[in-house]
């Protein structure tokens, strides 16, 4: 993974000092709250319902064991012993103080971490495929380009005060695990017919109040032009994005209002002026960054691992876990392990300091010291030998980290909701817990198969409910919590926005409603298809009829 040199270290240290000075000036009254707000947001500090929350960047979801240990330390020392992994591969601490926030940033800087631009109307954390560098289906490691974009966007002086937040995602595989089509900009790396590597560039995707799938504005962009092209897009957005209405200020609205084609032309026009400028990435810098993402020295292993097969046939619990939490790796004899942070009764995506420390140790022992964060709020050990899986699984189980539900119905994506968030209309975590109780049988979960349920506590859709196979949106009606259910969303290559199925449900009826949808699916399922496939085949009607049938 990327290692900081003196330049990177100087930047995070100076930034931490700059923030300390700004926080001090706020406390002394030299800055009003209105003036301080954009500054603290650009260092990740939010005022939430109960306290300050700090969002720390985890660039493209990659962590070293040392970094994860530091996050455990932050949880323990400055917070209440846990952290929350987010849908943008970041981590949030819910109970920090303004007073100590400069100390947190100073500590993070010692392990090459920061909270720069994790919030605010600027370019946020660049996310990528959590399986990058390990997945069998990859063209190139998308994190190379995510790192290049990260540096270009960090403290970019022209784009510090955009109309609204800006999110970029990169994928290096045709199977898009980075959800690029619901990002402001998505870049998909591929090899064209001539064998050149370049990007398909999509713009204007997003969720929130007006969910939209991104439009392709450039079919093929040679990699060396990436930064100039991004700069052109950002410049057009910075100048022409709406600033009159916070809810119409994202780039998706601009693309929608002027049209994808005119937007693409405006970008091309600007790009013509800058494509051969200093933004052309020098070859030696490209090589330098690529060197950090060179594949590790995998051992020459046989793809056949009899010990693994034997354990699977003798230990049913292990077999169940291996069936869904273990993913194919490009190197023979290795695999990718998904550590589920969705244990029953737990808040989806949360991990305690003890769990983080344990995972850091396991990463050192089993995964070349590396951990990933997924956009589904789970963690990943990317390079595990199949031969080590049983021992790893036992260790994970000891720490409540071996729930065999990756991609299953209880692998919820959920925002923190009204329990924590000032923007929320309703709670989300209890909904996940209730559904989880209904579906607390692993065999049944596996029988149901892949089912991505995503829960948002308000229309801002931080739980990504629009792209859930089943989406759940919390709303407030006359002081009570109600939940709208959507069907048919998908975040990946076949990106789609879910459709509302009918009238909303009271909080205590949601689990039953989800159960009902699953029943319809199981009754109609053909050829072992997933719920989302059944939905695509038979449409909303059968689900709706069964769901709203009066007894």
């Amino acid at each position, binding site marked *: 993974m990327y290692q900081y040199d003196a330049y990177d270290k*100087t*930047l995070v240290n*100076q930034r931490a000092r700059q923030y300390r000075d700004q926080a001090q000036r706020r406390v002394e009254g030299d800055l009003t709250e209105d003036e301080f707000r954009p500054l603290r947001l650009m260092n990740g500090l939010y005022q939430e319902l109960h306290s300050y929350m700090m969002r720390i960047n985890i660039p493209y979801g990659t962590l070293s064991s040392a970094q994860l240990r530091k996050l455990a330390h932050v949880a323990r020392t400055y917070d209440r012993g846990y952290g929350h992994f987010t849908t943008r591969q970041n981590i949030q601490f819910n109970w920090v103080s303004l007073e100590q926030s400069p100390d947190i940033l100073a500590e993070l800087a010692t392990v090459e971490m920061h909270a720069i631009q994790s919030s605010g109307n600027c370019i946020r954390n660049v996310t990528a495929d959590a399986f990058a560098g390990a997945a069998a289906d990859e063209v190139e490691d998308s994190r190379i380009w995510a790192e290049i974009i990260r*540096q270009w966007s960090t*403290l970019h002086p*022209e784009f510090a005060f955009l109309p609204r937040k800006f999110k970029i995602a990169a994928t290096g595989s045709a199977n898009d695990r980075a959800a690029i089509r619901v990002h402001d900009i998505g870049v998909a790396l591929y090899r064209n017919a001539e064998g050149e590597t370049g990007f398909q560039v999509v713009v204007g995707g997003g969720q929130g109040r007006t969910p939209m799938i991104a439009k392709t504005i450039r079919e093929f962009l040679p990699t060396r032009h990436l930064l100039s092209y991004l700069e052109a897009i950002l410049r057009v957005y910075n100048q022409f994005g709406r*600033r009159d209405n916070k809810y119409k200020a994202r780039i998706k609205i601009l693309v929608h209002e002027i049209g994808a084609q005119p937007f693409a032309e405006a970008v091309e026009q600007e790009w013509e*002026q800058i494509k051969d400028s*200093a933004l052309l990435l020098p070859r030696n*810098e490209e090589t330098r960054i690529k060197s950090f993402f060179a594949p590790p020295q995998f051992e020459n292993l046989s793809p056949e691992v009899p010990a693994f097969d034997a354990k699977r046939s003798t230990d049913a619990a292990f077999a169940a876990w291996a069936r869904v939490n273990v993913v194919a790796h490009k190197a023979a004899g290795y695999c990718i392990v998904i550590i589920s942070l969705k244990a029953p009764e737990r808040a989806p995506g949360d991990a305690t300091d003890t769990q983080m420390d344990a995972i850091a140790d396991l990463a050192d022992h089993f995964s070349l010291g590396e951990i990933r964060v997924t956009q589904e709020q789970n963690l990943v050990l990317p390079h595990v030998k199949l031969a080590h899986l049983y021992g790893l699984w036992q260790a994970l189980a000891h720490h409540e980290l071996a729930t065999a539900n990756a991609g299953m119905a209880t692998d919820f994506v959920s925002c923190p909701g009204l329990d924590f968030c000032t923007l929320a209309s309703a709670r989300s975590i209890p909904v996940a817990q209730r559904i989880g109780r209904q579906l607390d049988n692993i065999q049944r979960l596996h029988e149901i198969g892949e089912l991505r349920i995503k829960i948002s506590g308000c229309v801002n859709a931080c739980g990504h409910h629009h792209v859930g196979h089943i989406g759940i949106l919390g709303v407030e009606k006359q002081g009570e919590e109600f939940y709208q259910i959507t069907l048919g969303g998908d975040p990946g290559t076949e990106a789609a926005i879910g459709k509302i199925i009918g009238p909303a449900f009271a909080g205590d009826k949601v689990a039953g409603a989800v159960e009902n949808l699953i029943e319809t699916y199981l009754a109609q399922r053909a050829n072992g298809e997933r719920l989302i496939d059944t939905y695509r085949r038979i449409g909303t009607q059968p689900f709706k009829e069964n769901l709203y049938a009066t007894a």
Partner: protein
Amino acid sequence: MPLLRNGHIALDQWVAVGDDEALPEDAPIIVSLARWQTERGKLVDEYRQIGIRLKGGDQASDIANDLPYFDLIAIEFASVADGRGYSTARLLRGRHDFTGELRAVGHIIRDVFPFLHRCGFDAVETRNERDAKAWRESVGAIKITYQPATDKRLPTTVLRHLSNAVAAE
């Protein structure tokens, strides 16, 4: 509201003239884009030094052909959150090669000094003396620049490899 020019507090000889105000005689004046567009001929004839004040939504392209007439361009930041002026400045300074004074006015706090500086502004109307005195400290707070901008600082993409190049000799 102390004026900073190239990082130092300076006397401001310019006179900002509102759209409905009478034009003063023989003074370096700053007028709005709207006034420039309606009274262009008269202004060019009667004033040796003309400055123009752009709002956030005004485009560099609106005045690109007229740049030779201006000794000063002031770009207004209606709020700290309105970042359009940074793009306008970069286009005027960088693309259209404007060599006169490029001044940031409006709601400016010292924390945006580094962004103003890197986008080509050489003058800033600060809100108080304390902010003005903090220019050097603010602009120098973070010395590393990852990306090219309109200032002279080398981006790290180039800087990192310079020492290698030297050592290789």
